[in-house]
């Protein structure tokens, strides 16, 4: 699963810790998602999209 969370997060100027606290996850979880080592649930994907102001396609769809 591809994801462009790190890029979107950096556009916002947030740290992993800041994004984690906004989506009620741990910083470790955000790090794992960004590295592609953990596939988040749809609920967490949506929470991340909402916080970063992106759609699911923009963050997770291949070749978008």
């Amino acid at each position: 699963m591809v994801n462009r969370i790190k890029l979107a997060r950096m556009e916002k100027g947030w740290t992993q810790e800041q994004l984690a606290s906004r989506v009620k996850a741990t910083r470790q979880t955000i790090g794992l998602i960004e590295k592609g080592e953990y596939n988040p649930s749809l609920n967490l994907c949506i929470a991340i999209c909402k916080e970063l102001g992106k759609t699911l396609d923009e963050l997770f769809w291949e070749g978008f």
Partner: protein
Amino acid sequence: MKSFLNYLLPDDEYKRTRILYFLGESAVILALGAFIFAALEIFLFDLGEFDIAITLFIVFGFIGTYTYMRYIFSGIEFTNVYNQKQYKKERKFRFIAAISSGFVFFIVIFLFNGKPSNTEDWFDIIGPSVFFIIFLFLFDYISLKRSYRKNKELTDD
């Protein structure tokens, strides 16, 4: 998903998923072990009488120990330790916590055993308390070290 486990598991979904896997693994290993022992008992040879209390304690102990060991070795306990300063601070805190818990353990044994009358009685209280402190700190230390290593690989800040 509705389950009483929701009250026992952490909020973070990665941690939650991993712990559920550890619990599931322990249950599968236990079921496999029980099946093998039952098959041996029925088809091959008599394993003798089992003490029910000991058997139940083994079941409880295995699930608890397996899940806890997988948890501490997976490095998911200390999710916010990312630098040397945080690591040292947490290690110091864990050391103090182990000493404090050991002291409480000492008091509990003291109250159960009564006042020691000779040196051997004192060793019976102090010995387990010291082991309690050593193991508690050792497990916390392993978990902290693994978490720190894992976190460092994930950070980009």
